[in-house]
């Protein structure tokens, strides 16, 4: 079965540290890739997405992600984190096979930033 793996369940960083959150998926065909973020007490919202073209995708708030097809990966990065980046981050994949746009989510990574 198709799946999305986020191996880091909880990451703790100090402000200004660099961030990389891993995401791997298990599907050999064409995929659309997403990172969503959920700030404490808020809705899930889209951080960035990849459909085609340049594999390095820029998102909101200084985040970026790189699609590496050979590694089935879509890791999220940020060069210098802020306390306000404390949130839960979800990687997601859509598979273009069903009549609905079904998204498969990873289990999430909780990011805690020490001020």
């Amino acid at each position, binding site marked *: 079965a198709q799946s999305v793996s986020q191996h880091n369940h909880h990451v703790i960083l100090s402000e200004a540290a660099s961030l990389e959150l891993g995401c791997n998926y298990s599907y050999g065909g064409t995929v659309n890739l997403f990172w969503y973020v959920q700030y404490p007490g808020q809705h*899930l919202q889209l951080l960035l997405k990849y459909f085609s073209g340049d594999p390095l995708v820029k998102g909101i708030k200084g985040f970026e992600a790189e699609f590496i097809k050979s590694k089935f990966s879509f890791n999220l990065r940020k060069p210098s984190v802020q306390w306000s980046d404390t949130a839960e981050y979800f990687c997601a994949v859509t598979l273009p096979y069903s009549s609905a746009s079904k998204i498969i989510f990873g289990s999430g990574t909780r990011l805690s930033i020490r001020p």
Partner: protein
Amino acid sequence: DVKVTQSSRYLVKRTGEKVFLECVQDMDHENMFWYRQDPGLGLRLIYFSYDVKMKEKGDIPEGYSVSREKKERFSLILESASTNQTSMYLCASVGDRGTSYEQYFGPGTRLTVT
């Protein structure tokens, strides 16, 4: 802006009660989804609907049913609530296949079953 609203932010119900969770979207989206979110498990798809009166089971449909009588409204029903259904429930909608597939989420309903 797409708006997805859910009828309640917090709900407390007793074991065995019938529970209705309502979700409404205002962007004429065809596809709507119900997820539950539990710590360490991410979002798990319960049911989705790609058209009025159409529904498909997701990964964890047991103990749940859904209703889509109107395009903008997608209801999740717990026929007989149990304590293991205590969770955060998220509704989402997304447009047609020709669009970006971005899912827009509601604020969530935190359901506690006692």
